[in-house]
């Protein structure tokens, strides 16, 4: 039981860190830095894919949300 709780805690922490990381990446400051570090072509290609992935991820989320009471 303890092991399971530990695992859950680690997962929650990882999720939290991931969420904060995503929030950080979305700031204009970070976008400007990444644009400089990666170069405009690489940055824009990655950004395009990330947006598409986000759109596709929203499908199952919308589908499940529609089922909620």
């Amino acid at each position, binding site marked *: 039981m303890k092991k399971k709780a530990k695992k859950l805690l680690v997962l929650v922490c990882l999720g939290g860190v991931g969420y904060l990381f995503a929030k950080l990446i979305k700031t204009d400051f970070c976008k400007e830095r990444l644009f400089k570090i990666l170069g405009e072509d690489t940055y824009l290609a990655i950004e395009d894919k990330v947006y*598409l992935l986000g759109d596709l991820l929203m499908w199952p989320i*919308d*589908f499940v949300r*529609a089922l909620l009471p």
Partner: protein
Amino acid sequence: MNPKYEPLFTPFKIGEVEIPNRIVQCSMGGTTLFGWLEPSHFDLEGADFLLKRAKDGVGLVLPGMQVIRDTMGRKWLDSNRQMYRVLKPYMDEYHKTGSKLFIQLAGGFGRSMAVTPWMAALARNDLLNKIASPIVDVQYACASASATPNRWADNLTSRPFTVEEIQEMVWHFGATAKKLREAGIDGVEIHAVHEGYNLDQFAIANMNFRTDQYGGSLENRLRFATEIVQEIHKQAGDDFPVSLRYSVRSCTKGWRKGAMPGEDFVEFGRDMAESEKAVKILQDAGYAFLNCDNGTYDAWYWAHPPQYMPDNCNLEDVEHIRQFIDIPVACAGRMDPVKAAEEIAAGRLDAVAIARQNLVDEHWITKIKEGREDEIRPCIRCHNGCFNFSKAAGTENMQALGDSLHLARCALNPPTMQHNRYKIVPTKNPKKVAIVGGGVGGMESALVLKKRGHNPVIFEKEDKLGGLFLTASAMTFKENDKQLLKWYEDELKRYGIEVRFNSEIKDVNELLKSFDEVIVATGSVPRNMPQIKGFDKTRSFRELLREQSVKGDTIVFLGGGQSSCEAAYDLVLAGKHPIIVEYGNDLVAAQATCLANTSFLRDAMEYHKVPVYLHSTITEIGDGYCVIKTPDDAFKQECDAVVNGVGFVPAPLGDKGAHIHRVGDCVAIGNLRTVVWRAWDVCMRI
């Protein structure tokens, strides 16, 4: 406000609902409140866009079409209770603007469903379709009145709806309307006996071979549409107004064949005589408003007119049909607001329906009200960002997945329907930025940078702004393009952006001595094909269109892309005789150019009897002739000139660097959308 616009700003009524003015924002796929292809939900991006339109002063907003049953997930639109709960407070906020909002509900696409290759594969295979059906049932999405050929995919036939399916759908129209009314929506519009969507496929005799109560006589063919309005009144109340999107004439010659403006042809769809009877039946059934234009998916350029179509192209037919009914009528299709105001003042029209202008300039009505109409950014009807369903011979819908998910974005105005991705954020570190090239990419970059607080300077090697777009906009029918160039010039002046004319830059690194950043927007140059004997004798589009130095009557185009077809059409209008030689299997076979635009050009070439040689090339160009090689033959063609239409290659200046950026065709050959969006992508990060 200029008095000529005043008739637009008078109220009118649809049923018992008063609309504050005569401007109707036509429904555009993607500008939805409940999502587009994805499972229905309250769509924040669509809601934000629609509220902005109401604040600008649109009298009646019609959000993008909502299919009554989700294409993805197959849930009925009335089943998501949470969605309607969120809608209520939104509508309270919306009504503070004074604008009214009708939701456009649709039965589906039927044979017009723009199937992509994977959708076509599912639809053609019963087993695969069955397996996928809990998520997407393509056969259902394509179902129609009868077994008819799909507009997009070859060898794909719609299955007919069963009577039970039709009646199930009718009930859900009523149930959805009831929930919408409870959430504060002002009315609904049924989509549609219009544009060849599935209700229209029931209505058109050549697309409906049924022998039950939904086929045969005109009354039977309109039964689906009439039962819908009756069910809505039964469930949502008799006083809940129901509008109908309606095509007066189909302007269709046959499957996948449209009729040109002014063409004498036998109507395959609904002709005017039948339309005169149909509108009375529909009015008697309970429809309170007709939102009209012409066309079908087979003649798509009537419903989504590109720049090649005349202004107000549907007005005459719409005004004619209005004489047969008592309910108000709106007209859509390249409507000029000044002309619309005249017609409304004269009592020949009740409202003007305008669609894509709302994407390109979010303040166009405010600008009219404030007498600043010369500041309105014009829509150029390119459909590159908002509606780029594309198709060529033998292909299905070639639209990119990202575009299918996001219709109604704008090539010229990136923040439209993606306001979180493209936005002006003031800079904390203003920089001096040199922009090399005064084409659209350079001008757009300068505007974005200036709005953010930077100090851009444009270096243009010629004595005027526009770059390659000066050639692209030179054709007689490209009035909107010319207006756009004028708008850019004026906008640069309004923002006080410095332009240095006749300043050719040879070394971008030199610029970095006096500027913090450099943007290279030097465009492209025509592609060379030296392997063709005499290729150096070809003439350029610039010589043909802008400089008009190509003389003679018979002009051969090597390549059948959009530029060649547009130029050939321009020559046809001037009474000349172009010939097109294309290596591929179709004209304008490009992804991202809307079928409404490409099918016009293809149909126009056929109508005007322009010789088109597909699967062919030119092997030799000489003085006064060229040799055309077709799959079966090679022959000498006498001509006055051969125009190089084989495309362009990027022409960037200098190397890339940490402070040197590239924008426009010098990165990769694209269209105005790729140029403008790239300008934003780069200039938002400087």
